[in-house]
């Protein structure tokens, strides 16, 4: 349909006006819906939509970089049911504990390769046959001495998003356990805490690092206490938060036991008992109390 006045075509300008009006109307409706609905965008005060989106993008990128590090750990192969974080979580426990829902902690190299897991039969498919020969069908673990190969991705992951706590955790594990450089791991975790001051996990990891690797109980206690304070500030703690709190009590209790402080040990045991009475960590604390009573 043309609107020809004085030989000029007015179709396009009219269409543009219609498009502009439609866009404005849509914007007004959206704004109204957002204002009057209960649903709120997950924004922090002062955050714009752009910040929100870019933060998410950075987080996604950072997570991808950690996946890459995990791939490197497995010889460039994507592996299901296992990632570098599992290894990071394994390292810290001289003790045994059982967290019913914490699958990550039950790492026993039972993971499978991407194509191993659901590897279909080749049958008469020549393409599949070729792919099996071209692409690696197994995986291996990077030797500790070569774990320096993982660092660029871990470094890039935390540079991309300093809020990627798992990246700090994995990085500190690589530095302290695989490359035997706990001092560097301490610096790295401190950097993580600076960027994530509310993180109980990082504070806890730093405490563990001092406690188990550097054997500096004083520093460790400071960080365990700080982790406990942060944990107690969580308004509605979930199961993982409570489990983390239990671990803090366990470490504090262990320190009290080693210093022969039965009063403190009992106090931490009682708190642990309230959280998880049957957990092996609680039971271990109970055992220490019994030993102290028995005067061992």
């Amino acid at each position: 349909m043309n609107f020809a006045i004085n030989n000029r075509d007015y179709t396009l300008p009219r269409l543009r006006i219609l498009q502009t009006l439609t866009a404005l109307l849509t914007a007004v409706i959206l704004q109204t819906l957002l204002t009057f609905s209960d649903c709120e965008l997950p924004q922090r005060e002062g955050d714009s939509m752009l910040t929100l989106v870019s933060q998410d993008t950075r987080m996604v990128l950072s997570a991808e970089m950690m996946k890459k590090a995990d791939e490197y750990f497995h010889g460039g192969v994507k592996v299901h049911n296992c990632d570098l974080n599992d290894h990071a979580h394994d390292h810290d426990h001289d003790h045994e504990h059982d967290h019913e829902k914490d699958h990550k902690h039950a790492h026993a190299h039972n993971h499978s390769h991407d194509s191993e897991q659901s590897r279909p039969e080749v049958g008469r498919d020549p393409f599949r046959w070729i792919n099996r020969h071209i692409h690696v069908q197994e995986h291996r673990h990077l030797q500790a001495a070569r774990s320096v190969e993982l660092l660029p991705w871990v470094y890039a992951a935390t540079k991309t998003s300093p809020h990627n706590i798992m990246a700090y955790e994995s990085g500190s594990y690589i530095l302290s356990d695989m490359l035997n450089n706990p001092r560097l791991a301490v610096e790295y975790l401190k950097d993580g805490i600076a960027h994530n001051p509310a993180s109980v996990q990082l504070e806890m990891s730093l405490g563990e690092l001092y406690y188990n690797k550097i054997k500096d109980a004083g520093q460790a206690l400071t960080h365990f206490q700080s982790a406990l304070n942060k944990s107690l500030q969580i308004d509605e703690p979930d199961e993982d938060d409570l489990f983390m709190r239990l671990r803090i009590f366990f470490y504090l209790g262990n320190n009290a036991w080693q210093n022969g402080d039965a009063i403190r040990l009992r106090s931490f045991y009682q708190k642990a008992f309230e959280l998880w009475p049957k957990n092996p960590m609680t039971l271990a604390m109970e055992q220490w109390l019994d030993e102290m009573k028995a005067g061992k």
Partner: protein
Amino acid sequence: MSLIARQMNVLIRASLLELYRRKDLVVVFILGAVLLMPLAFATPFGFSGAHIYFNEMALLMVWFFSVFITLGVSTRMFPYEFEKRTIYPLLAKPVSRGTVVLGRYLGALSASISALVLFYAAYIILCGVRQHVWFSEVLVQAFVLHVGLLMVITAIGLTGSLLLTISANVTITLLIVFGMLLFGAKLPELADQQSLAGKIALYIAYAVAPHTEFFDLRQRLVHGWPAISWGVCAVVMAYAAAYSTACLFVADLLLRRKKL
């Protein structure tokens, strides 16, 4: 030298001259240097000696740039001939349209391979200097299969250029090349999760689309896995040759039907 050999020779030479005089390669090398330089000297956490990430990034750039150069050369040949009307003096010579298609294909492929040789040379030098490893069987196989990949991309780009505009052709070819690289091997599994129509469509794509993932030995090369058998290599190259021939056959038909 026979007439056809002479015609191929000049068509190949012209394509090579085009690539080197248009300075695309220079731009790509500068871009590559700018992107790789910070990586080459990076020492995360003060540790030097991380090589895999650098090898992977360098090889990724070799892949990107070689695909970019190949698509650039192959997709603009015929559109340029038609836009600038050079097709008329070309076809006015005693040369068949089939010869023109084959000559243009070989020209684009030669130009792309010559660029690939330079890219791999740069890759070998960069990685060799860092790791003091200059040669491996997987490296040779990776190069050979990469040539196979370029054969397929050149054929698709050239054929597409007789049907589509340059930008549409480049976009579609890139989608096909990288889409198949990422999902090619998983298409049957994806198909089995679809409804009947989706299943049929994905199985057709699996049969017809170029399996660019066959040519990807980056994982073996970068992470130091053993070489594949040369028999498999030969099968993949035969696939590349067959796929390219099929594309060129279509291109020949299209050029014959093209209105001049």
